[in-house]
């Protein structure tokens, strides 16, 4: 059972930030999908819905997504369907159901750094910056590695470039959490492979990515890159699968991704 003592709907970010810092157990509300499962005693719950953070917009060079944009809006957004080979729409579409995705928000997912997150895996293979109210604009991978600091994630900024992007997920039941997620991008020969739900939070396979980028692609080099990624990343076991199985299918999903991307002109 959760308890909430007070509720704030700030009209500007500074006010939201100040309220957040006021007490240890003041928290920002996201989509609230996981809220009822916990047993948090919240002093002030801070609702960002008056801050117009539910946008998805684009400029010539970037796509920006507000923290309060829901997964359903990511799924149906023409901007996201038409950029990054649609992987940001695609990667969320198997998450539970429509009504769930109408609740879940981008900001809460990224801020929480969930290990099972399909979205973080996909974002990680793109050039993404996270905008924090106090922490400023930092690259997503840095944000994921940093320690938690109480801040407000307001939006993410994704660079548009010539990347070809690919996302694949291994699930048993279609609406289950992923056993493993793989996203990869190829920007003018520069590869970036990210793997999530290992079951730890998504990470870039650096060695494999640079090996692929530096070598000519053939059966041998592709397989070697897959092997590298399954060696360099840490995998674990949970209810859904063992470490060994994840390691095996990681190679397969990356291999398929590379070959798929190679066929795109």
């Amino acid at each position: 059972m959760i308890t909430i003592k007070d509720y704030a709907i700030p009209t500007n970010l500074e006010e939201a930030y100040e309220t957040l810092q006021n007490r240890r157990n003041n928290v920002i509300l996201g989509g609230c999908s996981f809220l009822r499962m916990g047993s948090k005693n919240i002093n002030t719950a801070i609702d960002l819905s008056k801050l117009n953070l539910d946008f998805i917009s684009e400029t010539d060079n970037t796509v920006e997504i507000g923290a309060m944009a829901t997964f359903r809006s990511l799924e149906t957004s023409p901007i996201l369907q038409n950029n990054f080979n649609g992987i940001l729409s695609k990667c969320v579409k198997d998450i539970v159901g429509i009504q769930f995705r109408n609740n879940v928000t981008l900001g809460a997912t990224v801020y929480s750094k969930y290990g099972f997150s399909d979205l973080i895996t996909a974002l990680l293979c793109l050039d993404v910056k996270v905008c924090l109210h106090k922490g400023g604009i930092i690259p997503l991978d840095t944000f994921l590695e940093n320690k938690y600091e109480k801040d407000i994630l307001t939006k993410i900024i994704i660079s548009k470039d010539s990347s070809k992007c690919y996302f694949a997920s291994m699930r048993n039941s279609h609406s289950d959490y992923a056993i493993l997620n793989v996203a990869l991008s190829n920007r003018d020969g520069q590869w970036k492979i990210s793997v999530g739900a290992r079951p730890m939070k998504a990470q870039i396979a650096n060695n494999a990515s640079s090996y692929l980028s530096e070598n000519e692609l053939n059966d041998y080099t592709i397989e070697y890159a897959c092997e590298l990624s399954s060696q360099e990343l840490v995998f674990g076991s949970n209810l859904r699968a063992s470490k060994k199985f994840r390691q095996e299918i990681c190679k397969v999903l990356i291999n398929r991704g590379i070959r798929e991307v190679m066929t795109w002109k």
Partner: protein
Amino acid sequence: MEIKVTINNEDKILNIEYDEFLSEVLRKYGYLSVKKGCDTGSCGLCTIWIDAKPILSCSTLAIKANGKNITTIEGVQKEATEFAEFLVNEGAEQCGFCSPGFIMTVLAMKRELKNPTKDDIIHYLTGNLCRCTGYVGQLRAILKYMEVV
């Protein structure tokens, strides 16, 4: 605290606590079609609309509905009955406990999707679990309904 909402086209003032979820508040105020199946946002039983969008009322704090338009199946009985006829004709209502949430999603789909394929329909409804019917009878009912209505 008090929130002002419109429920099924009626303006209402609801007395709520900050930590109450919408599904519980709606039941408290007599909207008993709203069922709870899971506590984890996984089953779709509590699906209602806020501003015409299907959402999980079990995972929505009641206060978040302040100033919004709420629709439960009690508010769309005509349409619901129209679709339910198809469902019942297939025998695909079975225990009926998931029906209100399921039908609210079907009616939302009908508004949102133009000429959906079978796969589109299945995709739209994935968040609505049903343990009785095995889903295929529901699909038969939807396909017939979409053809006629």
